[in-house]
């Protein structure tokens, strides 16, 4: 009798599991929104950035999040700042940066910043969008953020085709802004970080977590279903093994009210004028 009940309970549980899996497969996704990758802070979907650029943004964004998550800032509800970079091959209308910001939940306490670089089909840089989190906008206005793009990204001194260097120049400027203006740091050594990047710009540091071959992460849904049906006792351990892979960084639930602006490539304008 006990065995029969046990079997029934198992059957119901597996049915629920399969059902929930199928429902999740059928889940409606919002158009114009793309998922963040495992590295979260750097999403090079256009596949245009150098390895050193990816690692620099990942490292310094993790550091910013850690530095801004200390008790002092938690007490003031300004902890958990996150700066995220996304490169995208396509046009601005193809994706909704506000929806992406909100679905990724960039920044705890709405202290997030999203930089999106758009590239054409030939991987030529086209334009840039800066989406500012709700609370971040109390410190950083679009006016100022836009001026920073002019000062640090659209710099005539940097080769216009060197998008990596232009991006890093702007990225560190925003990181500096966060440290100095939100967290009241006395100083931020922008130049030394920038110089360090310059020294290592063409160094290969290895794959990012997202680029590592991950069998469980890439395992198709149908394989999961077969495992559930034919190897039910192996399902739970597999879930634990797969969820324990590497490290996963995610957003802090931050929101944006749609406070973003775009800037075209000034080099293109100069080219057309001449």
């Amino acid at each position, binding site marked *: 009798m006990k065995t029969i009940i046990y079997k029934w309970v198992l059957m119901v549980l597996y049915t629920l599991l399969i059902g929930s899996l199928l429902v999740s497969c059928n889940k409606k996704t919002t158009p114009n929104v793309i998922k963040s990758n495992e590295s979260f802070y750097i999403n090079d979907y256009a596949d245009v950035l150098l390895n050193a650029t990816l690692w620099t943004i990942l490292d310094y964004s993790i550091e910013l999040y850690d530095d801004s998550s200390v008790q002092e800032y938690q007490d003031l509800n300004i902890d958990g700042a996150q700066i995220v970079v996304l490169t995208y091959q396509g046009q601005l209308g193809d994706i909704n940066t*506000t929806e992406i910001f909100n679905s990724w939940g960039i920044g705890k306490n709405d202290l997030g910043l999203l930089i999106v670089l758009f590239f054409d089909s030939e991987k030529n840089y086209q*334009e840039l969008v800066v989406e*500012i989190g709700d609370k971040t906008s109390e410190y950083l*206005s*679009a*006016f*100022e*953020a*836009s*001026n920073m793009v*002019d000062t640090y990204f*659209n710099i005539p001194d940097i080769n216009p085709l060197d998008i990596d260097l232009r991006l890093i120049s702007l990225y560190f400027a925003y990181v500096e802004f966060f440290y100095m203006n939100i967290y009241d740091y006395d100083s931020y050594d922008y130049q030394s970080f920038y110089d360090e990047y310059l020294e290592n710009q063409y160094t290969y540091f290895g794959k990012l977590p997202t680029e590592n071959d991950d069998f469980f992460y890439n395992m198709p849904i149908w394989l999961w279903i077969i495992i559930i049906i034919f190897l039910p006792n192996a399902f739970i351990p597999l879930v634990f093994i797969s969820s324990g892979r590497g490290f996963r960084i995610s957003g802090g639930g931050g929101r944006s*009210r*749609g*406070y*973003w*602006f*775009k*800037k*075209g*490539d*000034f080099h293109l*304008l100069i080219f057309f004028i001449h």
Partner: protein
Amino acid sequence: MKKIIMFPIFIAAVVLIILGIIWINAYNGEVTRNNLIEKNRGDVHAALGSRYDKVLAFIDAIEGADTTVTNYLNIIKEARTAFAEAIDNGDIIEADAEAGTIDSTFVTLLAYMEDNPASYNTVSLYAGFMSEFSAATNVVLNTIGKFNESVMSYNNHIQKFTNNMFLANKEPYATYSITNYNATLPTFN
């Protein structure tokens, strides 16, 4: 005999209970959606107010304005004051009308200044402000989108059967027009 009497009473009770549930659902749904509309409308006006504060900051920085620009500035300033007063008085129709005046005049002003950039010592200010104005516009559009979604949800709720039997006296809301907010503004570098 007793069963024969009890049966219609039982049926009537079941019908009454079902009607009660439908009425409660219709009423509570209407209240929830109406409150959401009020909240979203407040957000729209807050976003507009914030946008106009930035417009004024920009206007204050303009120096050496000619007669054409001065006229535009006066229209915007007067409409800004009227907008703030209408919001304070809870006059939504008036507030929206003034908002339309400010936005359309401001876009005309920007277009005029764009055509005559060398005439103003505000050109460096202009590029930054365009980004600010564009971002503030996006916020307004976002809040208007949310408001219109909540209006659609409310209107659907009160017009659907069986809710329309209990909510026949409720008027549908009108959505926000985005005529003045969806203009693509030029990008300056």
